[in-house]
């Protein structure tokens, strides 16, 4: 959910909208914001499932330290979504375990 109005920060500043694709679904994002913010705004809270137990995870530290919010972005697994800004057309996938890496060749 977006904080549209804020008593201290004022109305949400206008920014360009970029569209990103999350598991095949297009969602809007604010230019320059981290992927994690766009996903939470769209109500997406499960970012990955773990390698051993298959348990769901989402953002935890939001400053790029804990790596709990990693997803596969444009085919690259383990991207820290809380510190990686969105880009138009970015393809983001819920990461299962260690993720699918492109063939090594």
């Amino acid at each position: 959910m977006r904080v549209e109005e804020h008593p201290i920060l004022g109305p949400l500043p206008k920014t360009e909208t970029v569209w990103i694709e999350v598991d095949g679904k297009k969602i809007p994002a604010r230019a320059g914001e981290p992927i994690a913010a766009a996903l939470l705004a769209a109500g997406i809270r499960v970012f990955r499932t773990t390698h051993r137990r298959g348990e769901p995870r989402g953002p935890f530290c939001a400053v790029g330290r804990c790596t709990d919010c990693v997803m596969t972005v444009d085919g690259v697994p383990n991207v820290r979504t809380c510190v990686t800004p969105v880009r138009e057309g970015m393809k983001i996938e819920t990461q299962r375990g260690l993720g699918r890496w492109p063939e090594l060749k």
Partner: protein
Amino acid sequence: MAGAEVTEVAVVGGGPAGLSAALAARQAGAKVIVVDENAAPGGQLRKQIHKFFGSKEHHAGRRGFRIAEELVAACREQGVELWTDTLAYGIFDHTLGIVRGGTASTLAARSIVLATGASENALAFPGCTLPGVMGAGAAQTFINLHRVLPGRRALIVGAGNVGLIITYQLLQAGAEVLGVVEAAPRIGGYAVHAAKIRRAGVPIYTRHTVLNAAGHGELEEVTIAALDENGWPIAGSERTFAIDLLCLAVGLTPLTELAWQAGCLFEYCGPLGGHVPLHSEDMETTVPGLFVAGDMAGVEEASTALEEGRLAGLAAAAYAGYRSPNLEEEKAAARERLQALRSGPFGEGRYLAHEEIVRRWLKWRDAR
């Protein structure tokens, strides 16, 4: 080496301590580069939307994000180079390994100030890894910096200043906060912060703990319980809240990685949040020419970080060959203000802790 850069004073971390250090060193005449891994400088100040305590010298009464804007503007005006999106990935003697623009290189400096801040402590309980459980600072980043509510109904763990402030800020952003859970028998944060959220109708459950968090795929409910005298949950006191956000505000630990890498000597210091590098009154560590400031030198507040930064910046510039004309007076004034900030019932413990750290540093120096 390809891409290697050289400066006179390098500062790692563009929060209050780092920017203040950079400004002081620059004003003393040194060429200063600040490296910060974030997209914009200002550190944690950027997500602080409340008015700050302290005095005029610490921008008191100003909101944190505005203080950040002012410091950044002052740095720019004075010619401090601010390298954002730049990671200091390691320290190798007086050289930082950095990653900038997707490429690793080095930044060598005559003196270095580490002002890397602190990191939020985690808490372990059943369900603590569920999406929806996050650091209080994380929630603060989302609501105040990115303008996204990470949950609508929240519970906060920890009634220190961070927990109390986050509670208030969640309310400001339009969330509901069902309570603040605190294991200690009393509120750790300032009474005025507690009063703000009480007036807003948020109960504070002291001597309570989180038993578990649960939910299908993401956080749906949290059960808390009262604690007895020995800190054990009292059977029958359990209470369950249907929530989608649990914020952990259970303290901060100095972020000292680079100082360990550099070989600094450390001392464990509970009141300062953990292991802190020994440092002198001038904030110099046991590695000559390496200075520290702010939370990484002991978790305190933005106001103390500004003063420590000033001291470290002045001393780092002097080490690099730039003595401010009124160096001793300026340092004395900063120390006096620091001492004032560390007086009173909240500050005294930190004052004594810092005294001890400095005493240990002197002992180390004398033994050399």
